[in-house]
């Protein structure tokens, strides 16, 4: 016998749509053989006119080792009326008959709606509610993190990708519940008018659009060029598919062995957690071994025979040698640039540093924030300023701040210098914020910084 396996996209309460779909499939020569969690198995036959009927057993669960008594009695009644059970999925029970004009399994639409309501409370409402709360908490945590560290998150494409994915998930769950509630209202109205339950029209089309958007979001993550997230996702997604298959196989195995519903849920949950943690562990291990998230410096300097100091050779927009001739030929400078970019902002963290071997050479560090959306400019400037005072006491914070300076000296639009104040007095620090067009630079030289150097810095960084 030949079989065909299909992934069926339907929503659990759409009994009318499912019945019609199965009858159309039978007419095409595909008879439903069994229902799996992932795939529905169809037997290839001659096209046949069959009648399908979908009903519900509200207390049934996919974890039940055997059909519950409720399911068995229901099946007995249906068998006595000439129906043959094809399969079930959680509360959903599918029957078929080849009798012409069979007695419908459900002859009272209001009772049928009642049973669907009970089933949905245990299935759709419960699972979506639980998952929705978990996703919402995750989103809230991410948003709180954003409020605390805007400069770290705003240029982070991965941060927004995962936020969008989570929000998309929540949106889908809300949409499902709203769709169900509106279907239920429509059903009540139709029943009051003496009509049958409505079909959840367009759901299959909507599902296709949902999957397409999900695919595009995943593709966007896979094509991420800035970090190792693409490689991470390339390992994570197939890993998750394998885990889902393993969890499903375990669940089925336990069902076959007659393990009780409670134990099955517990073991499945534990296996799920262990496998996900294991998968993440393996991916992180592989990532660290292969420097997927971090880069390896091309050279190192052995400090006091104890540890290797990485000597980066990244190209920087501004070098110490552009500003001063001091130690121009020092050979162990590390030039490091770390870049993060999102649709909102690009952040380049640049530093020219020397190994901590007791010698003193001019060093500097500067962060370049390129704001891509005008409305974010003041927010980013404020965040750059406030980041300095994160760990200040309230008293010190009140006496400190960035003081506007003469921007013309820098050929910039605005310049601020850090003033640190405490009860002992005030001190102007060599820490500057230079703004030009849509770019904000936080500059920290660790050498004597003179007025002549200011326009050179602007020329090199702003071009």
């Amino acid at each position: 016998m030949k079989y065909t396996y299909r992934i069926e996209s339907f929503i659990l309460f759409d009994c009318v749509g499912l019945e019609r779909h199965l009858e159309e499939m039978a007419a095409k020569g595909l008879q439903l053989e069994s229902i799996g969690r992932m795939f529905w198995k169809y037997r290839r036959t001659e096209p046949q006119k069959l009648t399908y009927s979908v009903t519900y057993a509200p207390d049934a669960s996919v974890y039940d080792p055997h059909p519950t008594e409720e399911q068995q009695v229901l099946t007995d009644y249906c068998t006595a009326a000439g129906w043959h059970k094809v399969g079930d999925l959680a509360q959903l029970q599918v029957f078929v008959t080849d009798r012409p004009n069979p007695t419908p399994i459900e002859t009272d639409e209001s009772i049928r709606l009642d049973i669907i309501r009970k089933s949905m409370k245990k299935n759709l409402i419960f699972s979506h509610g639980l998952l929705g709360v978990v996703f919402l908490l995750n989103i809230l945590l991410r948003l709180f993190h954003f409020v605390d560290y805007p400069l770290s998150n705003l240029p982070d494409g991965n941060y927004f990708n995962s936020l969008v994915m989570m929000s998309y998930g929540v949106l889908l769950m809300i949409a499902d519940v709203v769709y169900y509630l509106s279907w239920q209202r429509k059903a009540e109205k139709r029943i009051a008018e003496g009509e049958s339950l409505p079909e959840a029209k367009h759901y299959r089309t909507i599902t296709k659009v949902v999957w397409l958007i999900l695919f595009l979001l995943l593709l966007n993550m896979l094509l991420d060029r800035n970090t190792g997230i693409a490689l991470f996702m390339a390992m994570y997604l197939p890993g998750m598919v394998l885990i889902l298959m393993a969890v499903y196989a375990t669940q089925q195995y336990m069902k076959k062995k007659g393990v009780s519903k409670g134990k099955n849920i517990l073991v499945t949950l534990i296996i799920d957690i262990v496998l996900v943690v294991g998968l993440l562990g393996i991916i992180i291990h592989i990532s660290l071994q292969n420097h997927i998230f971090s880069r390896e410096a091309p050279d190192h300097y052995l400090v006091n025979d104890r540890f290797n100091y990485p000597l980066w050779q990244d190209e920087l927009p501004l070098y110490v040698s552009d500003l001063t001739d001091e130690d121009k030929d020092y050979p162990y400078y590390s030039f490091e640039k770390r870049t993060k970019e999102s649709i909102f902002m690009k952040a380049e963290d640049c530093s020219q540093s020397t190994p901590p071997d007791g010698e003193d050479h001019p060093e500097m560090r500067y962060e370049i924030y390129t704001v891509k959306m005008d409305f974010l400019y003041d927010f980013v400037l404020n965040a750059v300023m406030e980041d300095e005072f994160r760990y200040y006491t309230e008293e010190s914070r009140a006496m400190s701040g960035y003081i506007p300076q003469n921007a013309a000296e820098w050929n910039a639009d605005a310049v601020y210098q850090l003033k640190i104040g405490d009860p002992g007095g005030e001190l102007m620090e060599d820490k500057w914020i230079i703004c030009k067009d849509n770019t904000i630079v936080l500059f920290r030289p660790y050498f004597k910084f003179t007025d002549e150097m200011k326009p050179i810095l602007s020329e090199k960084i702003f071009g």
Partner: protein
Amino acid sequence: MPREKFQTLTEPMFYILLCLRRECCGMDIMAEVDRITAGRVTVGPGTLYHLLDQFVTAGLIRETSVQGRRRSYILTQKGRDMLEAEYARLRTLVSDYEEILTKGETQ
């Protein structure tokens, strides 16, 4: 506006309760309703199963015996009262009809 539960009985509800004036197995009720109504009222197996469950929960019937998966039921006093009330309601309808249409027409 959906009907308040068991406030009035639908035809299938009425006949299922009527069948259970005597102890009866769930599966036999379908055939019994068919026989009593001469095929005019059909109770689907799913509807029957769910209604029996709801009647037990509402205390209108009770389980009398369980043999394997064969369960037998019988009306409780509450169920009998409900059936009586429904009968009285239907009698009132008939009486009103007769009063207004039949007698009224002849006067």
